[in-house]
Protein backbone atom coordinates (compact mmCIF):
# COMPACT_ATOMS: atom_id res chain seq x y z
CA UNK A 1 0.00 0.00 0.00
CA UNK A 2 1.14 3.54 -0.60
CA UNK A 3 1.87 5.25 2.66
CA UNK A 4 0.09 8.57 3.00
CA UNK A 5 1.72 11.52 4.74
CA UNK A 6 1.18 12.41 8.37
CA UNK A 7 -2.17 14.12 7.74
CA UNK A 8 -5.23 12.22 8.95
CA UNK A 9 -6.71 9.85 6.40
CA UNK A 10 -10.38 9.54 5.63
CA UNK A 11 -12.21 7.06 7.85
CA UNK A 12 -12.75 4.51 5.10
CA UNK A 13 -9.05 4.54 4.23
CA UNK A 14 -8.17 4.17 7.90
CA UNK A 15 -10.47 1.17 8.02
CA UNK A 16 -8.64 -0.42 5.11
CA UNK A 17 -5.27 0.11 6.80
CA UNK A 18 -6.58 -1.11 10.13
CA UNK A 19 -8.05 -4.21 8.60
CA UNK A 20 -4.76 -5.06 6.91
CA UNK A 21 -2.84 -4.29 10.08
CA UNK A 22 -4.99 -6.63 12.17
CA UNK A 23 -4.79 -9.31 9.51
CA UNK A 24 -0.96 -9.00 9.45
CA UNK A 25 -0.99 -8.13 5.77
CA UNK A 26 1.19 -5.01 5.98
CA UNK A 27 4.85 -5.02 5.06
CA UNK A 28 7.34 -4.06 7.77
CA UNK A 29 7.64 -0.41 6.77
CA UNK A 30 3.87 -0.10 6.36
CA UNK A 31 3.35 -1.76 9.71
CA UNK A 32 5.71 0.69 11.44
CA UNK A 33 4.14 3.65 9.66
CA UNK A 34 0.61 2.66 10.62
CA UNK A 35 1.58 2.10 14.25
CA UNK A 36 3.02 5.60 14.38
CA UNK A 37 -0.07 6.98 12.66
CA UNK A 38 -2.52 5.38 15.08
CA UNK A 39 -0.73 6.56 18.24
CA UNK A 40 -2.99 9.58 18.71
CA UNK A 41 -6.12 8.15 17.07
CA UNK A 42 -8.38 6.80 19.85
CA UNK A 43 -10.92 5.27 17.46
CA UNK A 44 -8.19 3.10 15.90
CA UNK A 45 -6.45 2.32 19.18
CA UNK A 46 -9.69 1.02 20.62
CA UNK A 47 -10.00 -1.61 17.92
CA UNK A 48 -6.34 -2.56 18.05
CA UNK A 49 -6.46 -2.94 21.82
CA UNK A 50 -9.62 -5.04 21.67
CA UNK A 51 -7.85 -7.33 19.22
CA UNK A 52 -4.79 -7.53 21.48
CA UNK A 53 -6.92 -8.43 24.48
CA UNK A 54 -8.71 -11.07 22.45
CA UNK A 55 -5.36 -12.58 21.49
CA UNK A 56 -4.08 -12.46 25.08
CA UNK A 57 -7.28 -14.01 26.40
CA UNK A 58 -6.97 -16.87 23.95
CA UNK A 59 -3.30 -17.34 24.79
CA UNK A 60 -3.96 -17.39 28.50
CA UNK A 61 -6.81 -19.85 28.11
CA UNK A 62 -4.63 -22.15 26.05
CA UNK A 63 -1.75 -21.96 28.52
CA UNK A 64 -3.98 -23.08 31.36
CA UNK A 65 -5.44 -25.79 29.18
CA UNK A 66 -1.98 -27.17 28.43
CA UNK A 67 -0.93 -27.01 32.06
CA UNK A 68 -3.94 -28.96 33.19
CA UNK A 69 -2.33 -31.86 31.43
CA UNK A 70 -3.39 -32.66 27.94
CA UNK A 71 -0.62 -35.14 27.15
CA UNK A 72 -2.59 -38.10 25.89
CA UNK A 73 -0.74 -41.29 26.97
CA UNK A 74 -1.13 -40.70 30.69
CA UNK A 75 -4.49 -39.05 30.55
CA UNK A 76 -6.67 -42.10 30.89
CA UNK A 77 -5.28 -43.20 34.23
CA UNK A 78 -5.41 -39.73 35.67
CA UNK A 79 -8.93 -39.24 34.42
CA UNK A 80 -10.01 -42.53 35.93
CA UNK A 81 -8.66 -41.47 39.27
CA UNK A 82 -10.32 -38.12 39.07
CA UNK A 83 -13.66 -39.69 38.32
CA UNK A 84 -13.63 -41.49 41.64
CA UNK A 85 -13.38 -38.24 43.54
CA UNK A 86 -15.91 -35.54 44.13
CA UNK A 87 -16.50 -33.14 41.24
CA UNK A 88 -15.60 -30.35 43.62
CA UNK A 89 -12.14 -31.72 44.12
CA UNK A 90 -11.62 -32.09 40.41
CA UNK A 91 -12.71 -28.53 39.78
CA UNK A 92 -10.63 -27.16 42.62
CA UNK A 93 -7.59 -29.07 41.49
CA UNK A 94 -7.98 -28.01 37.88
CA UNK A 95 -8.38 -24.39 38.78
CA UNK A 96 -5.54 -24.30 41.21
CA UNK A 97 -3.21 -26.27 39.02
CA UNK A 98 -3.16 -23.41 36.58
CA UNK A 99 -2.82 -21.00 39.44
CA UNK A 100 -0.18 -22.81 41.39
CA UNK A 101 2.13 -23.61 38.54
CA UNK A 102 2.16 -19.95 37.72
CA UNK A 103 2.56 -19.03 41.34
CA UNK A 104 5.31 -21.42 42.24
CA UNK A 105 7.49 -21.81 39.24
CA UNK A 106 8.48 -18.50 37.70
CA UNK A 107 10.44 -20.11 34.89
CA UNK A 108 7.21 -21.47 33.44
CA UNK A 109 5.37 -18.17 33.48
CA UNK A 110 4.79 -16.80 30.05
CA UNK A 111 6.88 -19.46 28.38
CA UNK A 112 3.85 -21.10 26.95
CA UNK A 113 5.57 -24.23 25.71
CA UNK A 114 5.95 -26.33 28.84
CA UNK A 115 3.25 -28.92 29.13
CA UNK A 116 2.60 -30.70 32.38
CA UNK A 117 2.15 -34.30 31.31
CA UNK A 118 -0.53 -35.57 33.71
CA UNK A 119 1.49 -35.04 36.89
CA UNK A 120 1.10 -37.45 39.80
CA UNK A 121 -1.29 -36.30 42.48
CA UNK A 122 -1.66 -37.05 46.13
CA UNK A 123 -4.59 -36.03 48.27
CA UNK A 124 -4.71 -35.48 52.02
CA UNK A 125 -7.78 -35.00 54.16
CA UNK A 126 -7.25 -33.01 57.32
CA UNK A 127 -10.93 -33.27 58.15
CA UNK A 128 -10.45 -36.93 59.02
CA UNK A 129 -7.50 -36.04 61.20
CA UNK A 130 -5.13 -37.92 58.93
CA UNK A 131 -1.84 -36.59 57.71
CA UNK A 132 -1.07 -39.47 55.41
CA UNK A 133 -2.26 -39.50 51.83
CA UNK A 134 -5.79 -40.79 51.37
CA UNK A 135 -5.45 -40.99 47.61
CA UNK A 136 -2.46 -41.28 45.33
CA UNK A 137 -2.54 -41.12 41.54
CA UNK A 138 0.64 -42.14 39.75
CA UNK A 139 0.26 -39.71 36.82
CA UNK A 140 2.39 -39.77 33.72
CA UNK A 141 5.95 -41.01 33.62
CA UNK A 142 8.48 -38.24 33.34
CA UNK A 143 6.37 -35.52 34.90
CA UNK A 144 8.56 -33.13 36.80
CA UNK A 145 5.73 -31.97 38.99
CA UNK A 146 3.66 -33.37 41.80
CA UNK A 147 0.23 -32.06 42.72
CA UNK A 148 -0.65 -32.05 46.38
CA UNK A 149 -4.31 -31.50 47.26
CA UNK A 150 -5.24 -30.99 50.88
CA UNK A 151 -8.85 -30.92 52.05
CA UNK A 152 -9.13 -28.47 54.88
CA UNK A 153 -11.75 -26.79 56.99
CA UNK A 154 -13.04 -23.49 55.68
CA UNK A 155 -13.22 -22.33 59.29
CA UNK A 156 -9.48 -22.70 59.84
CA UNK A 157 -7.52 -20.07 57.97
CA UNK A 158 -4.08 -21.05 56.69
CA UNK A 159 -1.54 -18.70 58.20
CA UNK A 160 1.63 -20.08 56.64
CA UNK A 161 2.94 -22.98 54.61
CA UNK A 162 6.42 -24.45 54.67
CA UNK A 163 8.10 -27.40 53.06
CA UNK A 164 10.82 -29.44 54.71
CA UNK A 165 13.03 -31.12 52.15
CA UNK A 166 15.78 -33.36 53.45
CA UNK A 167 15.56 -31.44 56.71
CA UNK A 168 15.81 -28.01 55.10
CA UNK A 169 12.94 -25.57 55.45
CA UNK A 170 11.51 -23.71 52.43
CA UNK A 171 8.71 -21.18 52.72
CA UNK A 172 5.81 -21.78 50.34
CA UNK A 173 3.38 -19.10 49.17
CA UNK A 174 0.42 -18.98 51.53
CA UNK A 175 -2.22 -21.09 49.80
CA UNK A 176 -5.71 -19.94 48.92
CA UNK A 177 -8.51 -22.23 50.10
CA UNK A 178 -10.96 -22.91 47.28
CA UNK A 179 -14.68 -22.57 47.85
CA UNK A 180 -14.75 -26.37 48.09
CA UNK A 181 -12.28 -26.31 50.94
CA UNK A 182 -9.19 -27.52 49.12
CA UNK A 183 -5.72 -26.10 48.84
CA UNK A 184 -3.33 -27.25 46.17
CA UNK A 185 0.43 -27.13 45.84
CA UNK A 186 2.42 -27.96 42.75
CA UNK A 187 5.90 -29.03 43.75
CA UNK A 188 8.86 -30.78 42.12
CA UNK A 189 8.10 -34.48 41.63
CA UNK A 190 11.29 -35.55 43.38
CA UNK A 191 9.93 -34.17 46.64
CA UNK A 192 7.82 -37.29 46.92
CA UNK A 193 8.98 -39.50 49.78
CA UNK A 194 11.62 -37.01 50.91
CA UNK A 195 9.68 -33.91 51.83
CA UNK A 196 6.81 -32.88 54.03
CA UNK A 197 4.51 -29.88 53.87
CA UNK A 198 3.66 -28.13 57.09
CA UNK A 199 0.65 -25.84 57.44
CA UNK A 200 0.08 -23.41 60.25
CA UNK A 201 -3.69 -23.18 60.71
CA UNK A 202 -6.10 -21.34 62.97
CA UNK A 203 -5.72 -17.97 64.62
CA UNK A 204 -2.57 -16.91 66.39
CA UNK A 205 -1.56 -17.31 69.17
CA UNK A 206 -3.67 -20.47 69.28
CA UNK A 207 -2.65 -21.70 65.85
CA UNK A 208 -1.66 -25.28 65.24
CA UNK A 209 0.69 -26.97 62.80
CA UNK A 210 -0.19 -29.96 60.68
CA UNK A 211 2.34 -31.92 58.62
CA UNK A 212 1.85 -33.98 55.50
CA UNK A 213 4.49 -36.48 54.48
CA UNK A 214 4.69 -36.53 50.70
Amino acid at each position, binding site marked *: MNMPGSDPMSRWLEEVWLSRYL*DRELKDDEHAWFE*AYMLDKPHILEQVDADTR*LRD*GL*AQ*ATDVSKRIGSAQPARSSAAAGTAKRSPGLAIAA*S*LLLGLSIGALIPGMRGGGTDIVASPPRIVFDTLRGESTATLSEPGGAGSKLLIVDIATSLDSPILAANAWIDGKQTALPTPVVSSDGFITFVVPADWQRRARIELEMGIRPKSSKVSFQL
Partner: protein
Amino acid sequence: MAANAELADAPPDVDLTELAARIRAGDGAAESQLMSRFMAGVRVLLRRHAGRTPIAIDDLAQDVLGAVLEQLRKGSIRDAAALPAYIRTSAMHRLHAEQRAQKAVAQSHESIDTEDARLVATNAHPADELDAARKARQVRELLNSLPVARDREVLQRFYLNEESCESICAALDIEADHFRRVIHRARTRFREILTRAGLSPDNE
Protein backbone atom coordinates in the same frame (compact mmCIF):
# COMPACT_ATOMS: atom_id res chain seq x y z
CA MET B 1 -7.86 1.63 33.91
CA ALA B 2 -10.28 0.27 31.33
CA ALA B 3 -8.99 0.57 27.83
CA ASN B 4 -12.01 2.42 26.55
CA ALA B 5 -11.90 4.95 29.35
CA GLU B 6 -8.23 5.75 28.85
CA LEU B 7 -8.74 6.12 25.11
CA ALA B 8 -11.72 8.39 25.58
CA ASP B 9 -9.52 10.72 27.63
CA ALA B 10 -7.27 11.53 24.69
CA PRO B 11 -7.49 15.26 23.95
CA PRO B 12 -8.26 16.76 20.54
CA ASP B 13 -5.45 17.29 18.09
CA VAL B 14 -3.11 20.24 18.42
CA ASP B 15 -0.58 20.99 15.73
CA LEU B 16 2.56 19.02 16.58
CA THR B 17 4.99 21.68 15.35
CA GLU B 18 3.36 24.22 17.61
CA LEU B 19 3.30 21.76 20.50
CA ALA B 20 6.99 20.96 20.09
CA ALA B 21 7.88 24.67 19.97
CA ARG B 22 5.95 25.34 23.16
CA ILE B 23 7.64 22.43 24.93
CA ARG B 24 11.03 23.71 23.85
CA ALA B 25 10.07 27.11 25.25
CA GLY B 26 9.36 25.51 28.63
CA ASP B 27 5.55 25.45 28.49
CA GLY B 28 4.43 22.88 31.08
CA ALA B 29 0.88 22.77 29.76
CA ALA B 30 2.20 21.75 26.35
CA GLU B 31 4.10 18.90 27.98
CA SER B 32 0.90 17.70 29.63
CA GLN B 33 -0.90 17.90 26.29
CA LEU B 34 1.75 15.77 24.64
CA MET B 35 1.59 13.17 27.41
CA SER B 36 -2.22 13.03 27.26
CA ARG B 37 -2.25 12.81 23.50
CA PHE B 38 0.16 9.90 23.18
CA MET B 39 -0.04 8.02 26.48
CA ALA B 40 -2.96 5.78 25.52
CA GLY B 41 -1.40 5.02 22.15
CA VAL B 42 1.95 4.08 23.67
CA ARG B 43 0.20 1.80 26.15
CA VAL B 44 -1.77 0.07 23.40
CA LEU B 45 1.37 -0.32 21.32
CA LEU B 46 3.37 -1.78 24.22
CA ARG B 47 0.59 -4.17 25.16
CA ARG B 48 0.36 -5.35 21.56
CA HIS B 49 4.07 -6.04 21.26
CA ALA B 50 4.72 -7.26 24.80
CA GLY B 51 3.03 -10.56 23.97
CA ARG B 52 3.39 -12.87 26.94
CA THR B 53 6.19 -10.92 28.58
CA PRO B 54 4.82 -9.54 31.84
CA ILE B 55 5.61 -5.87 31.40
CA ALA B 56 4.66 -2.95 33.65
CA ILE B 57 3.00 -1.16 30.75
CA ASP B 58 2.17 2.08 32.55
CA ASP B 59 5.71 2.52 33.89
CA LEU B 60 7.25 1.77 30.54
CA ALA B 61 4.92 4.18 28.73
CA GLN B 62 5.83 6.90 31.23
CA ASP B 63 9.53 6.21 30.64
CA VAL B 64 9.12 6.37 26.88
CA LEU B 65 7.23 9.65 26.84
CA GLY B 66 9.46 11.11 29.55
CA ALA B 67 12.49 10.47 27.36
CA VAL B 68 10.72 11.98 24.33
CA LEU B 69 9.85 15.09 26.35
CA GLU B 70 13.48 15.41 27.36
CA GLN B 71 14.50 15.39 23.70
CA LEU B 72 11.84 17.96 22.84
CA ARG B 73 12.95 20.26 25.66
CA LYS B 74 16.48 20.11 24.32
CA GLY B 75 15.24 20.76 20.81
CA SER B 76 16.77 17.53 19.56
CA ILE B 77 13.68 16.59 17.54
CA ARG B 78 13.63 19.06 14.68
CA ASP B 79 10.86 17.61 12.51
CA ALA B 80 7.79 17.64 14.71
CA ALA B 81 5.77 15.90 12.01
CA ALA B 82 7.98 12.87 12.57
CA LEU B 83 7.19 12.86 16.29
CA PRO B 84 4.74 9.90 16.19
CA ALA B 85 7.30 7.80 14.34
CA TYR B 86 9.96 8.83 16.86
CA ILE B 87 7.70 7.91 19.78
CA ARG B 88 6.87 4.57 18.21
CA THR B 89 10.55 3.74 17.63
CA SER B 90 11.45 4.81 21.17
CA ALA B 91 8.68 2.62 22.57
CA MET B 92 9.84 -0.40 20.60
CA HIS B 93 13.48 0.06 21.63
CA ARG B 94 12.51 0.45 25.27
CA LEU B 95 10.25 -2.62 25.12
CA HIS B 96 12.93 -4.77 23.50
CA ALA B 97 15.44 -3.67 26.12
CA GLU B 98 12.98 -4.66 28.85
CA GLN B 99 12.32 -8.02 27.21
CA ARG B 100 16.06 -8.69 26.92
CA ALA B 101 16.50 -7.83 30.60
CA GLN B 102 13.68 -10.15 31.62
CA LYS B 103 15.08 -12.94 29.48
CA ALA B 104 18.44 -12.56 31.21
CA VAL B 105 16.78 -12.80 34.62
CA ALA B 106 14.83 -15.88 33.52
CA GLN B 107 18.03 -17.53 32.29
CA SER B 108 19.76 -16.82 35.59
CA HIS B 109 16.88 -18.58 37.35
CA GLU B 110 17.23 -21.52 34.96
CA SER B 111 20.93 -21.80 35.74
CA ILE B 112 20.19 -22.65 39.36
CA ASP B 113 20.18 -26.41 39.50
CA THR B 114 17.92 -27.32 42.37
CA GLU B 115 14.21 -27.48 41.80
CA ASP B 116 13.80 -26.11 45.30
CA ALA B 117 15.34 -22.83 44.21
CA ARG B 118 12.51 -22.39 41.74
CA LEU B 119 10.06 -21.90 44.54
CA VAL B 120 10.49 -18.18 44.58
CA ALA B 121 7.46 -16.10 45.35
CA THR B 122 6.27 -13.99 42.46
CA ASN B 123 4.84 -10.51 42.57
CA ALA B 124 1.40 -11.71 41.60
CA HIS B 125 -1.17 -11.78 44.37
CA PRO B 126 -2.74 -15.22 44.77
CA ALA B 127 -6.23 -13.75 44.43
CA ASP B 128 -5.29 -12.12 41.11
CA GLU B 129 -3.80 -15.38 39.91
CA LEU B 130 -6.96 -17.24 40.89
CA ASP B 131 -9.07 -14.70 39.06
CA ALA B 132 -6.85 -14.98 35.97
CA ALA B 133 -7.06 -18.78 36.07
CA ARG B 134 -10.82 -18.63 36.40
CA LYS B 135 -11.13 -16.23 33.47
CA ALA B 136 -8.78 -18.32 31.37
CA ARG B 137 -10.91 -21.38 32.00
CA GLN B 138 -14.05 -19.49 30.99
CA VAL B 139 -12.43 -18.20 27.81
CA ARG B 140 -11.28 -21.71 26.93
CA GLU B 141 -14.76 -23.11 27.48
CA LEU B 142 -16.28 -20.34 25.40
CA LEU B 143 -13.78 -20.93 22.63
CA ASN B 144 -14.79 -24.58 22.64
CA SER B 145 -18.43 -23.51 22.46
CA LEU B 146 -17.99 -21.74 19.12
CA PRO B 147 -20.54 -23.50 16.92
CA VAL B 148 -18.35 -23.58 13.82
CA ALA B 149 -15.26 -25.70 14.31
CA ARG B 150 -13.41 -23.80 11.62
CA ASP B 151 -13.81 -20.56 13.61
CA ARG B 152 -12.00 -22.15 16.53
CA GLU B 153 -9.30 -23.48 14.30
CA VAL B 154 -8.80 -20.17 12.52
CA LEU B 155 -8.59 -18.19 15.76
CA GLN B 156 -6.13 -20.59 17.34
CA ARG B 157 -3.92 -20.77 14.29
CA PHE B 158 -3.99 -17.02 13.67
CA TYR B 159 -3.63 -15.67 17.21
CA LEU B 160 -1.86 -18.41 19.08
CA ASN B 161 0.32 -20.10 16.49
CA GLU B 162 0.74 -16.85 14.53
CA GLU B 163 0.50 -18.82 11.32
CA SER B 164 0.48 -16.89 8.07
CA CYS B 165 -2.67 -16.37 6.10
CA GLU B 166 -1.29 -18.64 3.35
CA SER B 167 -0.56 -21.43 5.81
CA ILE B 168 -4.03 -21.25 7.38
CA CYS B 169 -5.71 -21.15 3.99
CA ALA B 170 -3.77 -24.18 2.84
CA ALA B 171 -4.44 -26.16 6.01
CA LEU B 172 -8.14 -25.38 6.17
CA ASP B 173 -8.82 -25.28 2.47
CA ILE B 174 -9.89 -21.65 2.44
CA GLU B 175 -9.64 -19.52 -0.70
CA ALA B 176 -7.04 -16.82 -0.04
CA ASP B 177 -9.49 -14.16 -1.21
CA HIS B 178 -11.96 -15.26 1.45
CA PHE B 179 -9.52 -15.39 4.32
CA ARG B 180 -10.18 -11.88 5.56
CA ARG B 181 -13.90 -12.53 5.65
CA VAL B 182 -13.40 -15.81 7.50
CA ILE B 183 -11.10 -14.38 10.17
CA HIS B 184 -13.31 -11.36 10.59
CA ARG B 185 -16.36 -13.54 11.07
CA ALA B 186 -14.58 -15.82 13.54
CA ARG B 187 -13.34 -12.83 15.49
CA THR B 188 -16.77 -11.27 15.58
CA ARG B 189 -18.49 -14.49 16.66
CA PHE B 190 -16.00 -15.09 19.44
CA ARG B 191 -16.20 -11.52 20.62
CA GLU B 192 -19.99 -11.77 20.75
CA ILE B 193 -19.76 -14.92 22.86
CA LEU B 194 -17.27 -13.28 25.19
CA THR B 195 -19.47 -10.23 25.52
CA ARG B 196 -22.54 -12.32 26.31
CA ALA B 197 -20.52 -14.05 29.01
CA GLY B 198 -19.45 -10.71 30.49
CA LEU B 199 -15.85 -11.19 29.34
CA SER B 200 -15.77 -8.64 26.56
CA PRO B 201 -12.19 -7.97 25.44
CA ASP B 202 -13.28 -4.37 24.83
CA ASN B 203 -14.03 -3.69 28.46
CA GLU B 204 -11.29 -5.29 30.49
